[in-house]
């Protein structure tokens, strides 16, 4: 008999709880002041839900280097760089980047001209630290490779003989380097939901270390698309990215 009573209490317990939620109006109105904190509790629950969305375990981010696009617009250099990153377990981010660069550094040959043009890619992995719910800091390493060509011209005038007009063109050049990267990411607009909430901006600081031998018999290679000027084999750089992030 006791067994049946206990079973009945257990079965009815949830209904008893819901019955408390739908208490008579009279009782509700008598505890108006008590109701308000309940509503606040509800809104806290909503915020917790949105936090859960922000800190999703997986995300795919598509991005473009807006600094390089800006340089192209003002015809300083022609550069384009795009990337994709996949965030897993909210900690490990796999990154792939592809770019094109046409570099015309003016100061390389003062009595002539030099240009370097080609494509490059980078792949790497980062470890992500969540600083604030939608702001993160990450660090990692990337491997990069560039296939490019360079062209140059040197002119030395002579009054007595024909001017020296030496040109060179090397179409099949390759270079490899590794990068240590530190990346920041935060939302552009602080809205919780909607299309705009997926837009982020980020700055990536890089320390590029050239690992391939790029020495040439006559003229050196002076600029590598994706790496930059080769006056040093260790080169710092920074990129500004516009990102679109899709959380799962």
């Amino acid at each position, binding site marked *: 008999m006791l067994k049946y009573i206990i079973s009945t209490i257990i079965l009815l317990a949830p209904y008893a709880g819901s019955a408390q939620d739908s208490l008579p109006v009279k009782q509700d109105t008598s505890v108006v002041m008590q109701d308000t904190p309940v509503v606040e509790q509800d809104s806290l629950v909503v915020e917790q839900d949105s936090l859960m969305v922000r800190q999703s375990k997986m995300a795919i981010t598509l991005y473009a280097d807006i600094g390089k696009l800006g340089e192209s617009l003002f015809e300083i250099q022609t550069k384009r760089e795009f990337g994709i990153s996949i965030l897993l377990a909210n900690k490990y981010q796999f990154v792939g980047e592809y770019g094109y660069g046409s570099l015309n550094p003016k*100061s*390389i*040959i*003062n*009595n*002539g001209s030099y240009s370097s043009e080609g494509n490059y890619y980078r792949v790497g992995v980062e470890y992500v630290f969540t600083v604030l719910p939608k702001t993160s800091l990450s660090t990692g390493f990337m491997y990069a490779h560039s296939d490019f060509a360079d062209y140059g011209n*040197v002119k*030395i*005038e*002579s*009054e*007595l*003989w*024909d001017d*020296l007009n*030496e040109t060179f063109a090397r179409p099949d050049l390759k270079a490899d380097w590794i990068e240590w990267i530190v990346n920041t990411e935060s939302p552009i607009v602080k809205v919780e939901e909607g299309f705009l909430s997926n837009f982020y901006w980020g700055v990536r600081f890089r320390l590029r270390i050239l690992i391939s031998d790029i020495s040439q018999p*006559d*003229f*050196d290679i002076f600029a590598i698309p994706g790496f930059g000027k080769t006056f040093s084999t260790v080169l710092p750089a920074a990129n500004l990215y516009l990102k679109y992030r899709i959380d799962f």
Partner: protein
Amino acid sequence: MKGLAVILFIALAFSTIGCDDCTDCKPFTQEPFLEVRFLNKADSSKRVIIIDSVNQIYGKDLRHFKDTTSVFNFPLDMHHDTSVYQLVYRDTSALQTPYTDSIIIIYSREILRREDNYFIVECNLDSFLAIGEATLICKDTTGAECLSNEAYAKIYN
């Protein structure tokens, strides 16, 4: 606007005057050359020379050719390993008497990039031949090996 035009005119005038004065024009900093000094045979004192022609090119057309009246820089041919100079010149003390000398210089060439990002042709002298009274001097030691711009030839007459 008028003021700007005047300033531009003055700047242009000064730059033109500057270029006419060959002490300000230094083409040989990029171009390899052989320095030739004209000296008197008796006491090795400097002779004041007028170059009539080098390889049939009228001397006065060679604007950057002359540093002083007794020392001349002869540009080397940057396309070949040999330069031949056929000189016709006169001493200002005896303008009616033209002298002729031929200098043949053999060297090896290399294009180098200087620290200021100018490319130059550097030449190493191999041998020097003169038809006349010329002698190759390098760092005051006859026949020593040196870069072309360190060497100089003395022509005695």
